[in-house]
């Protein structure tokens, strides 16, 4: 399994992501600089968290116009697996690879804490190591994680089962209180129609070893890296 991690000026969670990939797959990911025009052959492309271009103008907006993105669009069409986390998710929406937009958190503050997510489906390449409706712990650290899509888009996402993670309470209920950032339908992560691309705000890569106080994030990488026991 070959993994490529895209790095933009201002990306800052590429090492966390690389550590997760290494820990679970046993091999080092390739780091790909945004100014390249070609992403090396990889089975999985990851857009990690951070503040690409300072998140100036809009989060992910300037990164989404980087040279490397033309090839990212091609790879997306070809069906290469893509994971965008946090700023990576914002970049995926800004490129149009995923629908919707990520707006300022409803509370306006940056939020860094552990959230609870409900895993909506088990039958995807991203979640096969989890159970359907499992409640997983997952850290969040973002300022612009408030997912917005218009009614029509939202209905399509829901009808097609493309919502993979939602903010929930300890019982797995999708409540207003559990919705840490004001996202529509408590959405924390969505897929493309083919189920090959996932964008999510929370950081599974920051909950993968005992030091982090939990292992709930591992499942995502185990699913993707086909290492499910």
């Amino acid at each position, binding site marked *: 399994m070959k993994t490529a991690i895209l790095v933009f000026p201002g990306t800052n969670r590429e090492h966390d992501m690389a550590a997760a990939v290494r820990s679970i797959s046993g091999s080092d990911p390739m780091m790909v600089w945004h100014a390249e025009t070609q992403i090396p052959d990889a089975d999985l492309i990851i857009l990690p968290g951070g503040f690409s271009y300072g998140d100036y103008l809009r989060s992910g907006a300037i990164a989404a116009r980087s040279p490397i993105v033309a090839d990212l669009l091609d790879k997306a069409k070809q069906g290469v697996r893509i994971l965008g986390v946090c700023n990576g998710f914002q970049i995926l929406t800004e490129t149009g690879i995923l629908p919707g937009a990520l707006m300022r958190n409803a509370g306006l503050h940056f939020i860094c804490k552990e959230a609870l997510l409900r895993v909506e489906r088990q039958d995807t390449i991203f979640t096969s190591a989890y159970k359907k409706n499992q409640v997983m712990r997952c850290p969040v650290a973002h300022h612009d994680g*408030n997912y917005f899509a*218009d009614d029509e888009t939202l209905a399509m996402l829901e009808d097609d089962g493309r919502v993979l993670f939602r903010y929930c309470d300890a019982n797995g209920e999708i409540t207003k209180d559990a919705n840490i950032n004001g996202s529509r339908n408590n959405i924390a992560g969505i897929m493309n129609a083919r189920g090959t691309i996932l964008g999510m705000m929370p950081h599974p890569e920051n909950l993968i070893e005992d030091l982090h106080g939990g292992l709930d994030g591992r499942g995502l990488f185990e699913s993707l890296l086909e290492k499910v026991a």
Partner: protein
Amino acid sequence: MKARITVTLKNGVLDPQGKAIEGALGALGFDGVDSVRQGKVIDIALADTDKDTAQTRLSDMCEKLLANTVIENYQIEIL
């Protein structure tokens, strides 16, 4: 040539910043504030001298970068 681009949220798109300002104005005792929406202005100085080319280039800039047309409208004003 100078231009001002105003980028505002589309109707129906929730505006957390606007809402927060509305709340804060209320808390400061300003009553009768019915709604607040926040947007951006981008002031650009261009080398262009022709108004029409400038206009075309500016709307191109908006479409390609300055506005996210999924949630935002834009308006160009040449000053």
